[in-house]
């Protein structure tokens, strides 16, 4: 049977991708950001997933204002890294486990989550940056080293799905994956965050205390974390901090008790606080 063995939380700041693509990760500004991912890459090699279920948000790349699905599941055979206005990132095409993705779509819909099914979709930095962080430098000719099932969540237009809804979706994703007969190792990623505001006069807002507390309760008291409401995210962590609801999808797909094997937190990467967790399921 397919098994979810670990959950990974990771910010997906575009500048992290740019720093890797331009090979400037050793510069003093970037060194502390990437130092915290060294453990993760070693861990990832030892615990290599067959499939990554990757929860992220599209930044008006695949979806413009004309269509705003709350939960869109990638069911295409592959996904091309998008041109976000300065040319596509020089990274591999993302390959899906298409049969498993279709199975998850059916299972979620029958479990009463009304999913949007994407049979064509380009993917932006929200998806490729966390893969780069975990799998290291790759060229377009390489293979990512894993299959990837993308789930795009709307966090651009208010309201995003609630933390609680995201958590429940995670629980349903767990059921779907664990009812797949193939013996494969699955990791689930929750990406985005942490505190950041990109707009208007309050741009640059960071709330490190809140971020650390959020990581604590997400790991150890998810019942509390799923109750955080939108206004708290917006007020305490900045208008773009709302992306952290996507970490709840990841957490919902794990066991009640997990082991935190790695945590990394750093301010800043560009305008954002970088947060990262690796959580292992027991047994």
């Amino acid at each position, binding site marked *: 049977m397919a098994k979810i063995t670990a959950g990974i939380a990771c910010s997906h700041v575009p500048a992290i991708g740019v720093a890797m693509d331009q090979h400037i990760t050793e510069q003093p500004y970037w060194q502390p950001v990437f130092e915290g991912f060294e453990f993760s890459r070693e861990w990832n090699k030892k615990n290599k997933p067959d499939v990554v279920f990757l929860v992220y948000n599209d930044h008006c790349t695949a979806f413009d204002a004309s269509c705003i699905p709350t939960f869109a599941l990638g069911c295409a055979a592959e996904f091309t890294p998008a041109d976000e206005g300065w040319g596509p990132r020089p990274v591999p095409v993302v390959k899906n486990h298409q049969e498993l993705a279709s199975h998850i779509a059916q299972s979620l819909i029958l479990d009463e989550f009304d999913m949007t099914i994407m049979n064509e979709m380009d993917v932006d930095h929200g998806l490729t940056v966390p893969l780069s962080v975990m799998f290291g430098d790759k060229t377009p000719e390489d293979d990512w080293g894993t299959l990837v099932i993308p789930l795009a969540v709307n966090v651009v237009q208010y309201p995003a799905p609630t933390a609680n809804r995201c958590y429940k979706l995670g629980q349903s994703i767990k059921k779907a994956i664990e009812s797949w007969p193939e013996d494969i190792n699955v990791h689930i990623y929750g990406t985005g965050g942490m505190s950041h*505001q990109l707009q208007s*006069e309050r741009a640059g807002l960071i709330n490190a205390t809140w971020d650390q507390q959020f990581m604590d309760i997400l790991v150890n008291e998810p019942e509390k974390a799923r109750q955080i409401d939108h206004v708290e995210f917006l007020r305490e962590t900045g*208008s773009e901090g709302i992306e952290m609801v996507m970490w709840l999808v990841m957490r919902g797909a794990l066991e009640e008790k997990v082991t935190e094997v790695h945590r990394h937190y750093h301010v800043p990467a560009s305008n954002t606080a970088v947060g990262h967790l690796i959580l292992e399921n027991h047994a």
Partner: protein
Amino acid sequence: MTEKAYEDIPGTFVFDADRSRQGYWLNQFCISLSKEVNRQAFRDDPEAHMAKFKMTEDQKQAVRDRDWNGLLALGGNIYYTSKLAAFDGIVFQDLAAMMSGMTREDYRQMMVDGGRSVEGNRYKSEWEKK
């Protein structure tokens, strides 16, 4: 319109359905600039390219003026308006500096020093006292 619990956050435009409705064509204009063919059209004839989108005169003027906060007040969303900034060759962090009324050096330093504190920046009433 119902009351909005997030309207008392200072210096912030929460992009909700009302703003989305108001800014629809402005945002669609901005996002068009993520394609080179549209960037070329806007370079060649800004007014003609803008005319393809049903923007209000205020919105068009805010585009001409590159009034970054004004664009947000007129229904623009940052992920869209940042495409206009990218068209001008402005990197995201410098755009953030402009919107918050700081020099790029001061803004960059603020981020390196841990970012803008949430203290005193949670409620509009805190800003009015200043």
